[in-house]
């Protein structure tokens, strides 16, 4: 997987486009009068987009493919849920924030695995993720065991989650962009390209990976926390499940690892596919992701965003060549 080209738009234009996009999405429910179904589906998409972008910081920028991010998703979800179940309940935003922070701290526990590279790291994260799932499922006092936790149903909060989710996406997008443009981002790419060479020029790979993993953990934890409020029922085998870790990997890879548009695109496609496939062909959806993975790795390592870039280039060339011949 080669490093994708850095975002090429000029900052001012990017900022304007970005603000316009966020404003449009924020106004959408009022303007378009979304049905509750669509409203909730978009909310869920926001959550998945944030999670995929945060996974991509680790998997795309540092090049460490984690199969264990569900652990942070689960910690975020359950810490937030516990705070919301207090008597009197904690204010929702505070509970979510606490969930995110707890997940970030929990992510630091993965520190010893961070000096592993490539497949060793990936497999170690499977181990950590599955061990977390078992321990948290066993810890009934905290997670309710395999019967899970139910949060009080509150349609108002669920409705408003749309904007909280959108705010999270905006934040994570901005952070992704800043990381990618900064020296820090370049240092991460250096780690991805060659750890030893990066160390030679003074990049402290372990420290940087800790920072990225924790940040990624905070965001995925926040996602989990919002998800807990969204579903108002959470269960450790689902929250900490291997499938959840995989879904983050799939979203980023389908969209394009290491890019910013990639995880966004991937998450949107993932949520829509899942929604429609689960409804009409529940027996096919795993295999479809399998086929997508194989095709993407073989033919377009940058995923859908790579495909889009290629198409754009072809269109430009076709449009450009007759004009060039005329001049």
């Amino acid at each position, binding site marked *: 997987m080669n490093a994708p080209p850095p975002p090429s738009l000029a900052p001012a234009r990017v900022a304007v486009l970005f603000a316009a996009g966020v404003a449009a999405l924020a106004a959408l429910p009022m303007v378009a009068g979304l049905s509750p179904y669509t409203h909730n589906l978009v909310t869920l998409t926001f959550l998945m987009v944030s999670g995929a972008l945060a996974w991509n910081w680790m998997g795309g920028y540092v090049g460490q493919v984690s199969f264990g991010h569900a652990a942070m998703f689960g910690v975020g979800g359950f810490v937030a849920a516990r705070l919301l179940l207090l008597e009197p309940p904690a204010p929702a935003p505070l509970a979510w924030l606490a969930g995110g922070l707890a997940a970030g701290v929990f992510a630091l526990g993965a520190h010893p695995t961070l000096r592993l*590279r490539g497949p060793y790291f990936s497999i170690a994260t499977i181990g950590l993720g*599955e061990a977390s799932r*078992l321990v948290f499922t066993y810890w009934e006092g905290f997670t309710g065991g395999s019967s899970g936790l139910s949060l009080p149903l509150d349609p108002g909060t669920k409705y408003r989650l749309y904007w909280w989710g959108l705010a999270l996406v905006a934040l994570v997008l901005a952070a992704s962009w800043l990381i990618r443009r900064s020296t820090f981002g370049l240092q991460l790419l250096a780690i991805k390209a060659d750890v030893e060479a990066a160390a030679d020029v003074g990049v402290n790979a372990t420290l940087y990976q800790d920072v990225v993993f924790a940040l990624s953990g905070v965001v995925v934890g926040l996602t989990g926390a919002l998800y807990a409020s969204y579903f108002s029922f959470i269960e450790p085998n689902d929250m900490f499940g291997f499938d959840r870790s995989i879904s983050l990997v799939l979203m980023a890879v389908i969209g394009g690892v290491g890019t910013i548009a990639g995880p966004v695109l991937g998450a949107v496609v993932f949520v829509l596919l899942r929604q429609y496939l689960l409804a009409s062909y529940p*027996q096919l959806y795993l*295999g479809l992701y*399998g086929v997508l993975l194989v095709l993407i790795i073989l033919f377009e390592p940058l995923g859908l965003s790579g495909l889009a870039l290629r198409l754009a280039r072809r269109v430009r060339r076709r449009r450009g060549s007759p004009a060039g011949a005329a001049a």
Partner: protein
Amino acid sequence: MDRLVDLAVSAVLLAGLYATMAYGLGLIYGVLRVVNLAHGGIIMAGAYLGWQMHERLGLDPYLSIPVVLLVTYGFGVLLYRVLVRHLPRGAAGGPASLLLLFGVWLLLRNVAYLLFTGNDQAITTSYSTRAVPLLGSFVSLNRLAVLGIAVVTPVALHLLLRRTYLGRAIRAVAQNADSCTVVGVDVERIYAITFGIGSALAGLAGVLSATIFSFNPAFGSGELLKSFVVVVLGGLGSVLGTGLAALILAVAEVFAILVLPSYLTAAVGFVMLVLVLVLRPGGLFGQRVLG
């Protein structure tokens, strides 16, 4: 005391199965430097193959082993020729091959769902519940048979790698593929054969597990992780190291019952995996090149 003997016996029996699971993964990684994430899927496929032959043809699961070996060998060769061959090798190709083979695994799982639904299956033979006395405790006949095969397998693998031309070529390719090309070894063919043998070993582990455990299409993920623990713990390529590592894992899992609630014993393997990777990434017994 009796309890301890029981536990020790079941640990040894389990160790045989774990070692069988691990050889294929270790062989493929040792030669191709590719972690075969589809390993768990092939184990699952082996289990279903054995089960189908028992259900449809009434074939004893132990007699169906040659067929399973052949089919999974063919699948492995095909997998290499069609997909894995096109991937970059080494550090750069790590994530790519991992994700690609993971995709293959998802696909295998889905095919199994479509063909056989998600229900739990098991191979039940006339002797499934038969047990024989051993060291003062009773041991299931199936588990004993599995242990027997698990002892024969590494010997066969060792002889193949050490005593045959093919084995020598495989070891040579593992050491230095470029030099092999120079002296006229068809490296691509050796890679394909190695992938085939590795897959066949996974298939074998699958049928053997199916005689002891129930399975469904998701079967194999725990097995993949355990194989990985064994491979990492045992150091690559050492047949003896793999056996010892399998024993350590099995003992740890079985004896964890004494101190941990049974629900958590499954976590022992995962915790060991992380500890071993972090503390002894070269394996407990050091690294050797195959054999």
